[in-house]
Structures are given as C-alpha cells and as structure tokens.
C-alpha cells in the first residue's frame, strides 16, 4: 500500500528538509532524505540516525523533485543538507520547461 498521499507533508529525520507530496503513484516505495526514511509530520525520528554522507547533496527551496518514471513528485518547502531519494535512487530536480521571453 502506498503510504504517501498527495498533499502530505513529510520531513527529513536527519536534516531540516521538509517536502509536500505532489504525486505518488509509484506503489510500494520508501522515500528518504539524507539516507533516512522521510517521516510524517507527527512522527519522531529514531535515536541515533545521522546524515549519510553519500546522500548529502542538499535540497533546494521551492524546487520540485521527481524520479525517472515521473511517478513521484515532491516539492521542497524547507531546504536542508540531505538529498531526496526513492528506494535509494536519488530524485532529480524537475524544472519547468523553458519558455522564451514574450517580448
């Protein structure tokens, strides 16, 4: 069962990152930040989890993150040191398609 609902807020267990779920149709998947599973807002992080240096590229405020299939999309509403991943595979920044000047 998919535990991630569009509109849900999730936060990192190991850094200041917070995201809002935009889309999550990937089925069974574990979303993580900084190497540790993302937590629902009310959940408390387990003691002793620390930022994994291999997943510490950081998150950027206001950027959308997605997987290759496009089945997952998260909006970063608070930035942090960890990087976002789904089942250990890093999510990528999804930019709006560039449009030229209208002048």
């Amino acid at each position, binding site marked *: 069962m998919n535990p991630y609902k569009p509109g849900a807020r999730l936060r990192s267990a190991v850094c200041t990152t917070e995201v809002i779920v935009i889309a999550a149709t990937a089925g069974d998947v574990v979303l993580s930040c900084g190497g540790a599973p993302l937590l629902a807002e009310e959940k408390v992080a387990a003691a002793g989890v620390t930022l994994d240096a291999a997943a510490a590229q950081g998150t950027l405020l206001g950027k959308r993150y997605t997987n290759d299939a496009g089945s997952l999309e998260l909006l970063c509403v608070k930035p942090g040191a960890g990087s976002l991943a789904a089942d250990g595979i890093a999510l990528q920044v999804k930019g709006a398609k560039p449009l*030229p000047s209208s002048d």
Partner: protein
Amino acid sequence: MQQVSHDNHAGTATTPLNPLLTVSDIVRLCRMPWGLENYSPLLEHRYLLLDVAGAADHAGREALATVAERLRVLPCPVIAVGALAVPECLRGVDVVVATVRDATALIRNIDEHPLAAMTLVQLLRHNEDLAPEQGLFVESLAYASLQGGVEFAKVMQEARKQSLTVPESDSAVAVERNGDELHITLNRPGARNAYSAALRDGLYEALQLLKMDQTLERAIVSGAGSCFSVGGDLREFGAVSDTATAHAIRASRNVGQLLLALGARLEFRLHRACIGAGIELPAFAARVVAHSNTFMQLPEITLGLLPGAGGTVSIARRIGRHRTAYLALSARRISAATALQWGLIDAII
C-alpha cells in the same frame, strides 16, 4: 470652439495642438454621425482635448451621458482639461489634467505613437468593467497587437544597432524561508533586475511555492542591488517569433494571475527605480512599501507598447483608470510621495 496657443513641446515643436473643445462643442458634434470622424490615430486628430470646467452650465445630464457613451468608443485618447464639474463626463474621458500645458507631455507621446495611445485607452476603458482575471487576458491580446505594430517595429529597428551584455548572477530570483515567511529577491543586480524570461520563470516558481505551502503566512518581495526593477529586459525585446506566440507565452507563464490569486499574502518592498513591470507587478500585492528614494514610471508608450505585465489591471485597481492613463500616456516619473498620495503604494519606509 476656442483655439489654443501652441506650447513648444520638445521634439515635435511643429505639430499643432488639436482644438480645445468645450462641452457645448462636444454635445453638438455628438449629435452628428460624422461629428468626430477625424478623431483617429490614422486621421487628422490623434487625441481629443475637452475643456470640462463648468460643464454643468452648458448641458443637461442626459446630453452629457450620451456624450460619455460616444467618447467611450472614440479610437483615441480623450484628455479632459480643468476640474471636472460633473461626474457624468468622467465616464467618457481617459485622463484629466489641470491645464492644456499639463497635457503637452501626453500629447507628445500620443503624436509619436498614436496606435499605442489608442490601444492603451481602449484597454483601460474595457478593463474598468471586467474581473481582473479577464482584464489580464485582454491586456495580453492588446499588447500582442502592438507588438505586431509599425510603431514598435520602428523602435526595434533603431534599437538593434546596440547590443549589451551584463554579468548574470547564478539565479535570477533568490528564495529564502524564515519561519513562516518567504523572502523572494529579484537577483539580477547587474541588469538592475530587468524583467527577463529567467527572472519571470524564477518569480513564477517562487510564487508556486507560496501557493502550495499554506503554512507560509506571507512572502516579501524585494530587489537586490541599486533598484527594485527597471522593467522588461530591452535585450530581449523583439526576440519573440510572432505576436500570437508571445500571447501564448504570457498565458503559459502568467505571473500576473498568480500575483492576483496570492495578493493577500504578498508584500513588496521597493527602492529607487520601479519602471514598467517593476511597478506593475508590485501593484497586485495587498501591501506595497517603498523607500523614500523610490520613483515609478510607465514608459512603454515611448516604445509603441503599453504596460503588459498586468499593470492595466493592477495599477488601475489601485489608482483608477484616469491616473493609470496619465502615467502610461505621459511616461513621466512619479515620486514615492505622489505614489503614496494616489494609493499606488501603502507606506514609505
């Protein structure tokens, strides 16, 4: 019909002024189907000057209402001169000045770019009765029309001789979060925060964040460097392939619509130059504050264009159609003090 002595306004000293019509004149001319036929960007008179002082003495309310309806579809600006004596006239005029001399800056611009002037006042008349969302749509169409016009083409031909490059910062818009407050900074100080496609897209993205995250109480928008923003990036002017595509681009990345929807949670903090989009965009916000060194200007008519970043909606909502037309036809700067007095901004800091 009284003849007016010519003020020698700069640039077009030889262009005679149109006659200053009295209310009696206009009532008479409106009774004839051909009475105003030469008032057009393409014909003899590119604007109509109307002496409105003491209007009530000359005509009944019914006659004035008929005049107003006629003037409202006149294809050129109607400039009222003098203190408006009756509100019936107001609906028919586009801009009000105290004396003929005060009209010269407007007349110079109208004479040079009559198509832009006509389209501007038609748009402002039209938008007065529309919901703001609809107004933005029509503004984009009107702007597209002028983008394809001969006046803008001439300006572009002259501008192409010069090309400049500016140092670019990494990101055209910087976004920071401080608790429940979002700080959005226009970040092209090397280009005096000219409103480029990159800046537009950065602002659009930042506003989408504000829209999505309801825990953000408000966003504060300011400009990095020497001024808030000098408006549309002239280096990108004339870059779009055709005017239909230009309209489609505006409809697809419509910052104005987002600002309109989010206005209640927005505060703009202005300093020094706020030109074109640099004041059109802030005017959407519920709160606009400015440093005392701020000035505002709508110079688009000098390019054969009109304010196309939402200003015919946002600025008109704050200061009314007549003062918006005054700003856009005169292309004059106004000070923060005047802007505060008119309600274009809410406070000086």
